[in-house]
């Protein structure tokens, strides 16, 4: 990654890409379906990345990567890692079918979703990754999102792929380690990276990383791994702050009242207990 990319100040997705590239071997090819990074990477004839990138249509992350993999294998370049780098819209929503297809075939590729919890490149519209209570331009404050965030990790785990993990821009060592672990494995690997969007979340650009850390510390976004869809490992046991601190910091949740926060706290606690139970099953 070189200077001159087009990310907004404090962009979590730019930070996430830096850490992904630190974890990858030199031989990697990146498939990039429509997302913020379609812009961040730079317009023709420039590129802010020193890896080959194939920009592609929104819903094709899993399929295009499968094709690249097949061609590289046909050429005998089996050591080159094929990576899909997609946002939450391209992963949770429009790209889910192609991702599921690739995971079912257990294609040898690393699929990375940087999750900023809405369609940020088109101007903050709700996605399947948008959390309950959040304001977006398609879930305005008079009618904020009522449903839960789609559990993408459970969906991928249900495919029984060799490796799925969450990661956060606030825990770079953990993130890089997970990239390295993923590329050493054969088959479909999924990495779900929590990446703050100061613009869409209505926060100051300098709090990006602190907010991402709060998401982990409040157990809103726990760090864990799932191997073969069965073995859960929690990577970090947070102290477990109340969710209030996380929500109060963001403009997109400003309209939430005590009752909303209590309900969300209840959901977070239940999810955490469930995750711990899964981890105990080993």
């Amino acid at each position, binding site marked *: 990654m070189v200077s001159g990319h087009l990310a907004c100040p404090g962009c979590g997705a730019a930070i996430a890409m830096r850490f992904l590239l630190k974890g990858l071997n030199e031989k990697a*090819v990146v498939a990039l379906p429509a997302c913020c990074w379609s812009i961040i990477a*730079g*317009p*023709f004839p420039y590129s802010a990345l020193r890896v*080959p990138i*194939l920009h592609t249509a929104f819903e094709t992350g899993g399929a295009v990567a499968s*094709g690249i993999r097949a061609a590289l294998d046909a050429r005998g370049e089996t050591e080159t890692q094929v990576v899909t780098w997609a946002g939450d819209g391209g992963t949770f929503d429009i790209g889910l079918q192609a991702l599921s*297809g690739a995971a079912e075939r257990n294609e040898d590729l690393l699929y990375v979703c940087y999750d900023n919890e809405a369609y940020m490149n088109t101007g903050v519209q709700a996605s399947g990754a948008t959390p309950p209570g959040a304001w977006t331009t398609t879930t305005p404050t008079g009618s904020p999102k009522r449903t839960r965030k789609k559990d993408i990790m459970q969906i991928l785990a249900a495919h029984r792929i060799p490796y799925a993990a969450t990661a956060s821009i606030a825990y770079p060592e953990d993130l890089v380690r997970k990239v390295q672990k993923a590329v050493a494995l054969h088959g479909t690997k999924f990495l779900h990276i929590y990446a703050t969007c100061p613009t869409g979340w209505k926060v100051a650009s300098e709090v990006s990383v602190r907010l991402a850390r709060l998401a982990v510390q409040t157990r809103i976004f726990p760090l864990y791994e799932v191997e073969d869809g069965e073995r859960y490992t929690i990577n970090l046991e947070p102290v477990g702050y109340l969710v209030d601190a996380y929500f109060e910091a963001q403009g997109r949740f400003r309209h939430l009242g005590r009752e909303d926060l209590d309900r969300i706290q209840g959901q977070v606690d239940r999810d955490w207990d469930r995750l711990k139970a899964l981890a105990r099953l080993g």
Partner: protein
Amino acid sequence: MRRVLEGSHAVSCAVDLARVQVISAYPITPQTHIVERLAELVADGVLDAKYVRVESEHSALAAVIGAASAGARTFTASSSHGLALMHEMLHWAAGARLPVVMAEVNRALGPGWNIWADQTDSLAQRDTGWMQVYCEDVQEVLDSILLAYKLAEQVSLPMMVALDAFFLSHTYEPVDVPDQQAVDAFLPPWTPTEILDTRDPRAFHQLASPDYYMEFRYKMQQAMEEALRLYPALDAEYGGRFGRSYPMVQLVPFREGARAPLALVTTGSVTGTARVAQEELGRRGTPVDLVKLRLFRPFPQAEVRRVLEPYERVAVIDRNLSFGYGGIFAQEIQAALARLERRPAVYPFVAGLGGRDITPQTISAVVERSLGEAPPEDLLWAGLKE
């Protein structure tokens, strides 16, 4: 070697001969026999290729785009709703300048569900930047796949080989299958330089601002024009090597050296029926010349003009319909003839939609109406139950 092959298997056979490296496809009737046979060839180790078994037609073309971008010769096949689902990626493959080849089995779109022959599916993809060719018989299907790879790789545009559902895809005919060495000599390995390569990392197909986008499109149009220029020599080379030639527009006069009062234009498998009808009509004292239009994109405008200009009347049979206008081939032919000072009267017939049989009797009726009636204001229907 002479073999009896089903139309679908002629496609698979040609794909094998072309030494395709990556195949990706999703099943849709009546395309399935093509990809089943390819799966067998790959599984049996006859064809050394990767077969990516995707979850939708959209992904089939996306996978092939990924593979071609990494330098592999690729193939997919589709039909009807599958092709419609691929629409977005058809644009992408062409814009990315990838020489993907697809067999497209012409089938009607629903509702109501209809699995039979109709060209509206592929003609609706007219403006995606794909080259398109329409085949008359099983031999032409096989040969067209090989020609398609050569042409697509020369001009860096994808190409669709269209064959009518069941009339060709499920019909067995004796076919001359070229031997591998001869095909290798005609179609050497594809060796692109602009590919995903870790030794020379580049970005492909990123944001193209108004400063660049239009020139990309200009170059695609130039590539289409180049394909039109290259086609005759390519066809001649194929003819020289394999003994069969497929002009983009073929005139079949009723009598050599004479000109009939009417030229009947057909595409696809209807041409075979029209050859029979031409003989029958001749015996009854109604000579008609037959014009087989094979290449649709790039459209051979000058050739269409040259062949059709001398006629008083031209009847076109379209097994397709652009709603609110008429048959698509007739529309393009009329546009091609528009600039002529003295132009033939065009009789645009729509027939055989959704697999309704276009019989020699249907064709005779088309010819007789065109000879007996004043030029129409609108499209004409043939074989419609009124």
